[in-house]
């Protein structure tokens, strides 16, 4: 529970910090708008020439894009401001101070900063999911709950993948590109997994589980989810989280600081 108290302090502190740089506000707002706009343009380009993508109708595809936006916001608000700094901690030796604190170092590196200005993306995303749910007639407490659980599982999986990718900074200091790696696969999450050829589907389900991150929560929202995928999503989230923790512990155990 000490961790929850700390989380609150970190969040308050981040908001204070962010308020100092109010210029960010406008830029973040514009980039939210652009991301939203470009996503809709792509959907528009597709549906002005076709009636479905991989068997998904327009409202379903919009709900999926909403889920995608929620995760983009999650990455921008939580993951990037924290894990994105890890390579610098290692390069400059600041990592030493993280390890000295009487806290889980993984927690401290993961949840210290929040870029709240990207949070509106998540609200837009939720609105798009809501629109998709209404249009497909799936707006009901049960499906909302299921979608929320699947979103949470997806968030845990996303965090774990990011954490593992950035942990490689302990060995490869020039790791900024590693985050690009995740993005390369993540962009596939704008589209239903069924729109890809089988072999790509296998990669996006079992190797880089993008399917569980975006397609599964969107399926839950529009009433297309089957139980194997739902349970698979929970299992993958738990498995990846454990893996990321073990990897982190191993990396820290092998950490020899910047000067040595």
């Amino acid at each position, binding site marked *: 529970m000490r961790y929850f108290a700390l989380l609150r302090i970190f969040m308050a502190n981040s908001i204070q910090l962010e308020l100092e740089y109010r210029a960010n506000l406008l830029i973040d707002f*514009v980039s939210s708008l652009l991301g939203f706009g470009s996503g809709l343009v792509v959907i528009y380009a597709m549906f002005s020439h076709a009636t479905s993508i*991989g068997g998904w109708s327009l409202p379903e595809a919009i709900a999926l894009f909403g889920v995608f936006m929620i995760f983009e916001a999650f990455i921008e608000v939580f993951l990037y401001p924290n894990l994105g700094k890890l390579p610098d901690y290692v390069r400059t030796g600041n990592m030493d101070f993280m390890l000295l604190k009487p806290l889980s170092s993984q927690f401290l590196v993961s949840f210290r900063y929040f870029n709240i200005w990207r949070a509106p993306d998540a609200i837009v995303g939720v609105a798009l999911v809501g629109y998709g749910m209404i249009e497909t007639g799936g707006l009901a407490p049960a499906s909302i709950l299921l979608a929320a659980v699947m979103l949470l599982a997806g968030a845990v999986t996303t965090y774990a993948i990011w954490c593992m990718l950035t942990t490689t900074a302990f060995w490869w200091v020039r790791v900024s590109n590693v985050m690009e*790696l995740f993005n*390369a696969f993540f962009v596939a999450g704008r589209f239903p997994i069924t729109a*890809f050829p089988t072999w790509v589907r296998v990669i996006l389900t079992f190797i880089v589980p993008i399917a569980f991150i975006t397609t599964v929560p969107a399926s839950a929202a529009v009433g297309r989810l089957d139980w194997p995928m739902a349970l698979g999503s929970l299992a993958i989230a738990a498995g990846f989280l454990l893996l990321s923790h073990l990897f982190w512990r191993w990396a820290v155990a092998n950490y020899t600081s910047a000067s040595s």
Partner: protein
Amino acid sequence: MKATLIRRLRLARVLFSVTLAAFIEYRAEVLIWMIAGTLPLIMMFIWMGLAANGPVGGYAAVDFAAYFLLVFIVRQFTVCWVVQPLSREIRLGEMSSRLMRPLDPYWMYVADHLVALLMRLPIVPPVVLIGLALTGAFVKLSIAALPLFLLAIVGAWLIRFNMHYTLGLVAFWTDQATSFEGLLFTIYMVFGGALFPINLLPPAAQEIIALTPFSYMIGFPVDIMLGKLSDAEVLRGFGMQALWTLVFIGTRQLTWRHGLKRYSAVGA
């Protein structure tokens, strides 16, 4: 005259060998670039799937395959990451040590990007050849246009690099340069045609996009290689590339000169 030329050539050689040595240290990055550049391939799968039961907006599945494989090539040859290191060096004052060297830092970044391009070169042909073989899209390429295609890639690189370099120099005034880069990238991907061929949009939108630099950074070279453009359109495209290159080289020099004054004034 001859002496300065020799000096320049020696500088260039030193610059390249130093940069190359630095890159060979980071071989793992080459693998990462390879995977990070796959967005055009993802879009290829999606559009090929949409066109599986008949052409979409005049593009059959095989047309999409050819289009996005070419987009992949153009993107691989015009990757540009100059904004981040440049703005960081300006912000943290690391630019000072660069200024001590007998060469505009611009050329060091150019060398950096060209060497990276060389390192990236080996990964492009296998991906493209396998893609062309699997999709049968080879017949859609007009091989005679290859020299013009390569020239248009050079033009695309020049626009992109100078545009980004100018953006990086904005760091003399604000620490937001990298956020602007994100905005620029989104517009570039849509207007450039990396997500879908611009031809799928209504004609009015196409005309507006054709005025921006972005359509000459991806879509124009690709359309040349697909043999979609008339001679007049090719000529006009190269004209626009030249125009935008000059615009961005001009703004870069202007920004650099004014920024440098500011830099020394801050005393960083």
